[in-house]
């Protein structure tokens, strides 16, 4: 028995940490954040070279054939680095095609997704609260789809959309189709911009498995978001420890004051044990099918809740500077706002987890 990571998994995280530190140092991150483009070709290429873009794509299609837990560990590091880019949606499309695509769809898309040559994303919600498969309304007629999707991350750079269709199923739509139009939504998380996507009779190809596939993809997304949130909140804690350990008031560093020390200890104590929660959820997704849906729901709700508590403490403990555009705390604060709201708020997933428990 081992409730822990393998050496390979730790090395993977290490390598990615190194990459983020080199390729996206604070000044670069700030540039990308201010530009709010959410995508940087050289970062994307670097990720492809590291092999993380095709992490969960089967080896037969040019990927690394790893599991969701590996992907979640990567997401943790990306959250720590607030690495801009369409990574989340890209992974979910890869997962959907790999698990529910036809042989033809796999052959066409997976190698290109794994190499990063094509970028994928997810177009699910149609209004602020409609993330679940049951609430998809986009209509398919023959091989044409019409509907209006919002909060699509990285849409401007994507080649392939995974679209939720009425009845709960999923379909693939190509960005270059004439029936697709995109409008920026001025996303709060400038590392992952979002768009509205209008589909008017665009060509689509359904994936198999209907709502079952959509739920599977959602559960993976919940685990990845929880991991990203954990990473982002740990980074905020780190930044705050560093700041309060040097900032002086009343003739002493802030951490010397017990009120500050205890607040930091509380923030850490709320957050740290949740690491095992999202590890478990991702592991259950890979290995314990009977528990995976519920574990993912609990993890996403709990981690993003606790992470936002940490974020609030981080702003407060920075004092006035913490509320400025200039202060980097906002980068992770907003990343966490995304992680919490994307794919549905804690309330939604708590209600589902209650139902799944038979309550």
């Amino acid at each position: 028995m081992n409730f822990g990571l393998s050496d390979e998994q730790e090395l993977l995280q290490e390598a990615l940490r190194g990459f983020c530190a080199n390729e996206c140092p604070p000044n670069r991150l700030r540039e990308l954040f201010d530009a709010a483009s959410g995508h940087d070709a050289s970062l994307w290429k670097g990720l492809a070279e590291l092999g993380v873009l095709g992490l969960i794509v089967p080896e037969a299609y040019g990927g690394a054939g790893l599991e969701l837990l590996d992907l979640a560990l990567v997401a943790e590091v990306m959250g720590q680095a607030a690495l801009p880019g369409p990574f989340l949606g890209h992974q979910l499309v890869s997962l959907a095609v790999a698990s529910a695509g036809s042989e033809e769809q796999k052959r066409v898309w997976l190698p290109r997704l794994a190499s990063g040559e094509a970028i994928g994303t997810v177009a699910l919600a149609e209004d602020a609260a409609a993330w679940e498969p049951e609430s998809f309304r986009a209509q398919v007629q023959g091989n044409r789809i019409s509907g209006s999707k919002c909060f699509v991350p990285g849409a401007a750079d994507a080649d392939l959309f995974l679209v939720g269709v009425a009845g709960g199923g999923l379909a693939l739509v190509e960005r270059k189709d004439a029936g697709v139009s995109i409008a920026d939504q001025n996303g709060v998380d400038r590392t992952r911009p979002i768009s509205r996507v209008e589909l008017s009779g665009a060509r689509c190809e359904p994936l198999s498995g209907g709502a079952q596939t959509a739920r599977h993809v959602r559960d993976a997304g919940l685990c990845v978001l929880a991991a990203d949130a954990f990473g982002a909140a740990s980074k905020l804690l780190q930044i705050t420890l560093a700041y309060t350990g040097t900032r002086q008031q009343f003739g002493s560093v802030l951490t010397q004051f017990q009120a500050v020390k205890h607040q930091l200890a509380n923030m850490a104590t709320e957050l740290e044990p949740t690491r095992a929660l999202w590890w478990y959820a991702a592991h259950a997704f890979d290995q314990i099918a009977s528990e995976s849906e519920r574990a993912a729901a609990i993890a996403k709700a709990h981690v993003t809740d606790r992470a936002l508590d940490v974020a609030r403490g981080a702003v407060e403990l920075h004092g006035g500077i913490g509320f400025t555009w200039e202060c980097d705390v906002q980068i992770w604060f907003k990343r966490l706002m995304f992680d919490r709201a994307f794919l549905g708020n804690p309330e939604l997933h708590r209600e589902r987890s209650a139902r799944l428990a038979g309550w």
Partner: protein
Amino acid sequence: MDLRLGEKYEAFRSEVRAFLREHWPLRGADAQLAPERQEKLFRERALARGYVYRGFPRLYGGSEQAPDALEDMILDQEFRTAGAPRDIRGIGPAMLAPTLLDCGSEEQRIRFIPPTLRGDLRWCQGYSEPGAGSDLAALSSRAVLDGDSWRIDGHKIWTSEAQSADYMFGLFRTEPDAPKHAGISYLLIDMRSKGIEVRPLRQMTGGADFNEVFFSDVRIPADSIVGRRGEGWKVSRSTLKHERNLIGDPRYLRNSFDSLVELARRSQRNGRPALEDSSVRQRLAEIEGYVCSQEYSGQRQFSAALRGQELATLLPILMNKLYSTDAMQRITRLAFDLLGGDGLVAPVAEEYGMASQLRTSGGWVAQYMFAIANSIAGGASNIQRNIIGERGLGLPRDPRAK
């Protein structure tokens, strides 16, 4: 990550299950015995099979098995599922006996460990004093070596179970001139000694589980000291480590949470089970986030310990007590809310203690109060925050007070 145990351990699990099916509950004439007799009989059989007190040598009444944390875990799970008694609970077997194993003399081990494990010798812990709680090293109760006995004078407080204990393990100042931490010794005291007076303190639950203990000119034999003179602080560390494990146990959280869900099922809101009320479901699901985190974090710590990598999980280890006592307060607070008007009714005597099964509303009312006590006992929450901050996050130590 791989949560499977593997063939060898699954075989062990089946063996334990078979044993339990055959031996618990007791059958035939045995089943007519008084409950305590039944437990005793069962424990003897389990001991013979090597299933209880595994860490203790046969010589001291244990079953002397090679350390195997996975087997221990399986035993624990299976005994729990079967509702079978395992190690006798309480601070004697859980805290004092391992301390004697670590630091006691051979005579002390032979004399005290076996009856403690059997439950024939009951213990209380005499650390806290009116002027020394969180700042335990400030204690002032004294023991003076006088010929072949120690003479003790002083005053202990909050001593749980002192009223029924046979012995106390306690800390006393033996070297008045040594610096604060250095002048303390660890003594074992017969509670029937002349000069000891135990006065019960009534708790807010209504019960009286803890006491004040007064010592005036109490004499105990010179060999009642564990470890060397002035090194009692070091010895007590061994005990405190075991105490923290006792309080941080995530299984206790899970059991209490399951009882909470049951309570929500039984309670009514607007003529329907409270469990169907969306605000109740939300609170329950949020609390379960805490319970699961602690459960899995516990497994992670356990796994790291199996591999000798405790250092990798030092931070969560330091957090266990604060985290689980906080979570328990969340659980009992929701229970209190679910009780509605029944929360206005004070618990009756049978419901005061930790042992009450959380099946009655009075039991929950008592637990609601008791959960706060657990945030104080064994190192209060603020002290835990200091430990997490200083040892876990590397923050500066509190300025040393005069």
